[in-house]
């Protein structure tokens, strides 16, 4: 099969069917770190394959000797599609990046003005319990409300704080941002929404793991009960509910899964490496 067709089929498979299958395989969450790598490599590989399909079609037609009018038209169309894909990604990346950074800066500035800082944590004087973090390159914040401090036992509070610290340490915000960018750039036809939802669950699962390692599962579960059990603000129940169910499901499972973890990691590496080695390299080598 010619290179453009192979890459095109690959791009479609990686953007649609594979994420669809992965998002239905709930057992994948039991190896969250490997799963995270797999999602990222799938997303990256699908973008690269789509761009590669366009570019290789351009070269396949123009390197033809002699290139007829039809070849030039096809090459022009392929180039245009490639540029559109790239432009959508860049525009979406820029928009998402600027708006996120702006919202975070504005929020952080006001937190710094009203919150009391206690042991590196910003405390808001409010009687609805919350705990969250404001990620950022130039100073992140972990914020809790006064009521969180009074309701939680020490071990529970340390579980909450460790959960948030692990988000900040692992820069989960960047992963979430990347998948938000993909979803905004290609909201339809591809499985960008389910990819994003799954990655959102995975960062929580990873932070939960970190928290239960330092503070214990019991403390973490008790903290989740205390903070989720509080009267929720008015509004419909969104997808956040099901993400909590998924987190509990993973927390209940304490067995190690070394084989699954290894297999998923190998799959993640293969998805990126094999197309590059088997398709892209020969194509690039053929150009010179």
């Amino acid at each position: 099969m010619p290179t453009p067709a192979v890459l095109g089929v690959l791009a479609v498979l990686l953007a649609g069917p594979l994420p669809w299958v992965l998002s239905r395989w709930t057992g994948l969450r039991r190896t969250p770190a490997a799963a995270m790598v797999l999602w990222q490599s799938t997303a990256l590989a699908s973008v690269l394959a789509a761009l590669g399909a366009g570019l290789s079609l351009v070269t396949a037609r123009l390197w033809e000797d002699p290139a007829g009018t039809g070849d030039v038209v096809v090459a022009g169309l392929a180039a245009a599609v490639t540029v559109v894909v790239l432009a959508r990604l860049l525009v979406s990346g820029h928009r998402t990046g600027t708006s996120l950074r702006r919202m975070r800066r504005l929020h952080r500035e006001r937190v710094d003005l009203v919150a009391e800082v206690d042991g590196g944590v910003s405390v808001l004087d409010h009687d609805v319990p919350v705990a969250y973090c404001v990620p950022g390159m130039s100073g992140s914040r972990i914020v809790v409300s006064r009521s969180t401090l009074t309701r939680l036992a020490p071990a529970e509070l340390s579980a909450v704080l460790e959960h948030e610290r692990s988000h900040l340490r692992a820069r989960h915000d960047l992963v979430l941002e990347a998948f938000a960018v993909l979803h905004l750039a290609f909201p339809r036809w591809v499985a960008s929404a389910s990819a994003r939802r799954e990655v959102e669950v995975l960062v929580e699962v990873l932070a939960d793991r970190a928290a239960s390692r330092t503070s214990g599962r019991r403390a973490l579960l008790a903290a989740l009960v205390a903070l989720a059990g509080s009267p929720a603000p008015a509004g419909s129940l969104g997808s956040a509910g099901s993400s909590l169910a998924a987190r509990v499901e993973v927390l209940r499972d304490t067995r190690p899964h070394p084989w699954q973890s290894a297999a998923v990691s190998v799959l993640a590496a293969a998805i990126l490496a094999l197309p590059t080695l088997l398709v892209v390299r020969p194509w690039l080598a053929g150009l010179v």
Partner: protein
Amino acid sequence: MGELEQAVLEALWDLEGSDPERPGASGRAVHERLHGHDGRDLAYTTVMTVLDRLARKDVVVRERDGRAFRYAPRLTRAAMTAELMHEALEGTRDDREQALVSFVGEASEEDLAALRRALADLS
């Protein structure tokens, strides 16, 4: 700088309602308040710089009063806290960009039941 801004905003909140005729306070009054109440020895120009910075952040509203300005906090301390809480709780719901990353979002009855079961199974 952050600590200074907090002190100046604090002073503005304290001065709220001190003059029932006119809202807000003058830069002079804020300077005096910081000196008299908190014992801070700040230059008047420093206080003015901080006030302008707070106005740029839209935390303080600036209004012309003759040849000077009067400054008032846009929100009370409680309202500003409530605004932040609202943003934090709001962010957990829809699939907009996640500016803030919450510990736990809204929970359905089934979620809570699953949580309690998991906790009970531990003991």
